[in-house]
């Protein structure tokens, strides 16, 4: 300890300072981690967010029903032939967010349109069967959606999104994912 050192050579004290500082930093991180993580969705909320099953058989042709998954509203529309035709005959150039109707439904189950029910502008719930195309109309700022839930006119930027869902059999679907 009595030897002289030049400024350039690190001393034992430097090592101790840095080692202590690094250990303290790791310790503080370990301490902070639970306080941050406790805000993550808890086990009960995650359990309540599990996929939901829906029986389609009571839904009449032309009817729209609503349900919630993870707190978000979902429209299930049993479309008529005419509604499907109208959606299929729309040219892509007429769409603000071009997307063919075929890609928004399950093949062979084209009459079932399952979409999120909040306007993609600012989140209001649009009105069923309203607007020029008798799809949906959002009264908040005038967005018009067609029978495929696609934005046609108005401020909404994208089509009403499709949630993840699968057909368990011909009349039952499971909406959501784990």
């Amino acid at each position, binding site marked *: 300890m009595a030897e002289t050192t030049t*400024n350039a050579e690190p*001393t034992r*004290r430097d090592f101790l300072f840095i080692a202590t500082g690094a250990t303290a930093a790791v310790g503080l991180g370990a301490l902070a981690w*639970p*306080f941050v*993580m*406790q*805000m*993550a969705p*808890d*086990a*009960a*909320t995650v359990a309540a967010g599990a996929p939901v099953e829906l029986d389609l058989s009571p839904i009449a042709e032309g009817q729209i029903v609503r349900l919630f998954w993870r707190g978000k509203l979902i429209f299930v529309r049993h479309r008529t032939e005419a509604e499907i035709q109208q959606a299929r005959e729309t040219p892509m150039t007429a769409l603000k967010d071009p997307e063919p109707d075929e890609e928004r439904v399950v093949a062979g189950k084209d009459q079932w349109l399952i979409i999120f029910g909040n306007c993609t502008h600012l989140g209001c719930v649009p009105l069923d069967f309203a607007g020029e195309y008798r799809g949906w109309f959002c009264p908040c700022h005038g967005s018009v959606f067609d029978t495929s839930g696609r934005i046609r006119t108005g401020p909404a930027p994208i089509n009403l999104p499709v949630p993840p869902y699968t057909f368990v059999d011909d009349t039952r679907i499971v909406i959501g994912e784990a």
Partner: protein
Amino acid sequence: MSAHSTTYVPKNAAAKWLESRLPIIGLVHSSFVAFPVPRNLNYMWTFGAILMAMLVLQIVTGIVLAMHYTPHADMAFASVEHIMRDVHYGWLMRYLHANGASFFFVAVFIHMFKGMYYGSYKAPREVLWILGVIILLLMMGTAFMGYVLPWGQMSYWGATVITNLFSVIPVVGDVVVSFLWGGYSVGNPTLNRFFSLHYLLPFMLFGVVILHIWALHVPGNNNPAGIPIKSGKDAIPFHPYMTVKDTLSLVIFLIVLSWFVFYMPNYLGHADNYVPANPAATPSHIVPEWYFLPFYAILRAIPNALLGVIAMFASIAVLAFLPWLDTSKVRSASYRPAFRVFFWLFVATCIGLGYLGAMPAEGGYVVAAQILTFYYFAHFLVILPLLGLFETPKPLPNSISESIFGKDGSGKSGSAMPVGAAAQPQSK
């Protein structure tokens, strides 16, 4: 008081800008960096910093718990179990908060006993001491209301017993109680307002703590010798010496807290509080948490309800008069051999009262509690005033440095460290 040798000088432009508008860096520097502190402080002086850390811990864990807790009588108990089982690390937050409260009181009792032993309450620190008594009262109120929130059997019945006490107030007692309850008995309105006040009081506590530290910094710290700083040699700067010492002490304290949190988290609690509140069934033994037991013993020792309540509050209020009750001109018990005996008798009395508070109020326990309650007050009202007049204190050292280094003063005595070695940070 020794002059502050170093004042803060801002080094860069941003610091200069802030300092000229709000001199907060300078304030922190003069209070916690350059602040001169007696060089003979022992580890009993680290509990102030520990208490500050515990207050922050309680507030942070408390705010986190409040994100998941529901303060409604029908849902409170279940929401606490939801925290324990569903919320990520919820069990840790809850156990930290519950055991943190106990350790907050461990630290405050040690801190208070230190003050009593070394005469830290004497002039010119009377206001500092009285602010401390106010802090203790706020802590007790906060802890009491916090314990009600889980809405277990002890929560409900402890709330019932303690709120009922206020009915002894003459004339307005019953109105006061009904306003505390927000109804005709402890119920949901009570729970809701206790939650609100439990969230509020810690921040008021924080304000009083700021005053407490301010009142301390006017005369500076007391020290084990009880004599003031006479020259620069008697003092060392708060940073790095006290910052490092407080950090070490805090780490050891947190290790002990962690032992409880991780290995025995329910040891200090009561099993009955894991039973949801049932207004139709009273637990066989209603006991408060351990830190209230001595006061509970005093309350129950007096057969008359009103006098019992008065005695309980008086046992805390008498502390505020300590600066004037103790007539000794000598501050520190280190130089008061007779006082030391009575001090430890007082500590034993407090522990004894605590034990009796947990026992049923029957037979021999009642008599013992009455004797110890009498002695508790006698210590303050009879022994301390008389001791100062009749005891023979030991001669005081000439200075703090002399009490450490010996009469030479220049540090040549064999037991002390070479002068200068301790106080100089390594210069490179």
